[in-house]
């Protein structure tokens, strides 16, 4: 044990880097995303080749508009899943938000009060669930399921039927057209969604909070021992997800100028699926906001293809969606494996 000087320090580790990493491939951690993107493009061009009008720019632009809510929700979900959690309450929070928004607006509340109020409520609900998950060590699944029941329960309790929104601001937002190019129009909702994605991606990649999210997902026990604010971060991601869901609800209410307690049913599963398709690992610790965005795009594109196909009844719609999903996932898997 005392023969240290026999090894001249300079002689040690002549290969400074891991040889496996010497060849430059696109960084392996981005491979799933790149694979998803490639496959998405392939899918898109297959659509263009097969359907008339599919190549119009508005198809792509509408993808963002039609899936604005899902995008926003998936962003929040991405944070939650990266910490190794799950949030089932998002769809219900959307319904609660739309119902509440519509009810309050109908009751004559000023829209500029309603907006922050519902966003705050969604965040608070998220925070509550996060707190229960962290402090009482309740499984995220069951805690957020309770949140689901609660939020939709509140919505149904407020009003079972759909409530129209006739508020001027809401209507204006709903009808405001942003002209991107000749004949290519988009709406506030899609712009909001894109902004949310950009902000979230920046937060996840560049801030301390973002890194803590990954650390917790990698190993929550270690993160705690490393002195990271595990509790605070966990609560924050659920708050964030609640906020995103509430924002999704607002977008929903803008999109449809109405509120309804059954809105957003099953949306949680779509959001989770979108994240996972986009390469976020359900076990936590890995994934990107852009991945989830791509996941939503895959979902949206499948829907678009189905509508363009136009001759599928319910049964075939489901089967084709399943098959497309299957094809996509398996290809993604194969491509990622090859590249590794």
């Amino acid at each position: 044990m005392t023969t240290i000087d026999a090894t001249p320090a300079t002689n040690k580790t002549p290969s400074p880097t891991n040889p496996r990493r010497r060849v430059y491939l696109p960084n392996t951690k981005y491979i799933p995303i790149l694979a998803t993107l490639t496959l998405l493009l392939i899918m898109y061009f297959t659509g263009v080749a097969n359907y008339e009008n599919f190549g119009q720019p508005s198809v792509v632009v509408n993808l963002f508009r039609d899936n604005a809510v899902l995008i926003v929700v998936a962003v929040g979900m991405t944070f939650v899943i990266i910490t190794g959690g799950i949030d089932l309450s998002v769809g219900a929070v959307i319904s609660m938000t739309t119902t509440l928004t519509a009810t309050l607006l109908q009751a004559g509340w000023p829209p500029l009060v309603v907006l922050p109020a519902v966003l705050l409520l969604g965040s608070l609900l998220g925070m509550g669930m996060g707190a229960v998950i962290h402090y009482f060590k309740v499984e995220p699944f069951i805690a957020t399921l309770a949140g689901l029941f609660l939020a939709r329960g509140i919505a149904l309790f407020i009003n079972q039927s759909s409530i129209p929104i006739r508020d001027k601001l809401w209507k204006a937002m709903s009808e405001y057209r942003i002209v991107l190019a000749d004949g290519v129009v988009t709406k506030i909702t899609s712009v909001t969604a894109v902004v949310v994605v950009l902000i979230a991606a920046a937060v996840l990649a560049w801030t301390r909070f973002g890194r803590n999210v990954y650390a917790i997902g990698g190993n929550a026990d270690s993160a705690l021992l490393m002195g990271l604010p595990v509790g605070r971060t966990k609560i924050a991601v659920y708050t964030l997800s609640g906020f995103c869901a509430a924002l999704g609800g607002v977008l929903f209410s803008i999109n449809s100028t109405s509120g309804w307690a059954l809105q957003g049913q099953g949306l949680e599963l779509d959001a989770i699926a979108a994240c996972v398709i986009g390469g976020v690992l359900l076990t936590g610790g890995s994934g990107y906001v852009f991945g989830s965005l791509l996941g939503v795009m895959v979902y949206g594109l499948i829907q678009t293809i189905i509508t363009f196909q136009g001759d599928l009844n319910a049964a075939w719609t489901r089967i084709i969606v399943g098959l497309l999903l299957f094809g996509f996932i398996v290809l993604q898997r194969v491509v990622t494996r090859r590249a590794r």
Partner: protein
Amino acid sequence: MTIIKHRLFWPSVILVALLVVNMFTANQFITVRDGHLFGVLPDILRGSAPLLLVALGMTLVIATGGIDLSVGAVMAISGAVACLLIKDLGNQNAVGSVLLIMAVAIGASLLLGLWNGTLVAVVGIQPIIATLILMVAGRGVAQLVTDGQIINVQSSPYAAIATGHFLSVPIAFLIAIAAVVLTVLLTRRTALGLLLESVGGSPTASRLAGIRARRITIMVYVVSGGLAGLAGLIYSANIKSADSISAGNLIELDAILAVVIGGTALIGGRFSIAGTVIGAILIQALQVTVVAVGVPSKATLLFKAVIVVALCLSQSTTFRQKVFGRFKSRPAVTAEVPA
């Protein structure tokens, strides 16, 4: 003291509480009529059979760290296949043919489970997505099989699996219990349970301990498929028809909830079949209670939310410590140590 600490204590308490409520609201809680059990309790037990079966398979899947979203679709397919074949029977009451058809339907479900298992264990797709594919497409297939309509059958042997009685006990419940017993034997009398928990606990460590994780994973999905198929048969026999649209709709959520209530963690590892049984019956009892007490349908979800919140808090050791711990003074803790 120790019994209160048991993780199934609080779910059991809530279950018993719900049953007690039903005791007061019901005309009959449990009686014998026409030679078989009758009343709310038998109704709850019978009604819980499909959920129990599905949750049972889900428990094993979850133990390996997976999840099976496709159970509802498998239920729909199995019921559809069975009813379609039975409808075309010359004599719908021929016990032999009906049994054969049921075997075919379950066979189909096992194959669907195999498909899931292969996607997860061989292709390496995350379980939630792998089974989502079948969840979406499978119901489409079921709708295709039934042509979107409800297929009616008039087969008393088939109906019996849901509504019949054997030794005055509902057959559906007996089937569920038989499945539970079989699963317990399968997992605890063989080494399967241990290996499952090991794979769920850490796939890497299990592989290095020489466990054939792949085979085991495929197997649990197959079992889950088969049990879902059986549940689908009971579901459709109960209404003597195949309803491909609503059969097993959203049951995956209830099943997962039952498993989690039963104390099995979603990340995999240790599982408790007894817990799942309690969980499944609890959910059914809750549903019945909601109707029996006459909770208005717009408040139903709120009512459920309260129960689930109570459940999840009661199961949290930390919560109990923080709330009930207040009553005890700190020195008391130290005092009991020497024992």
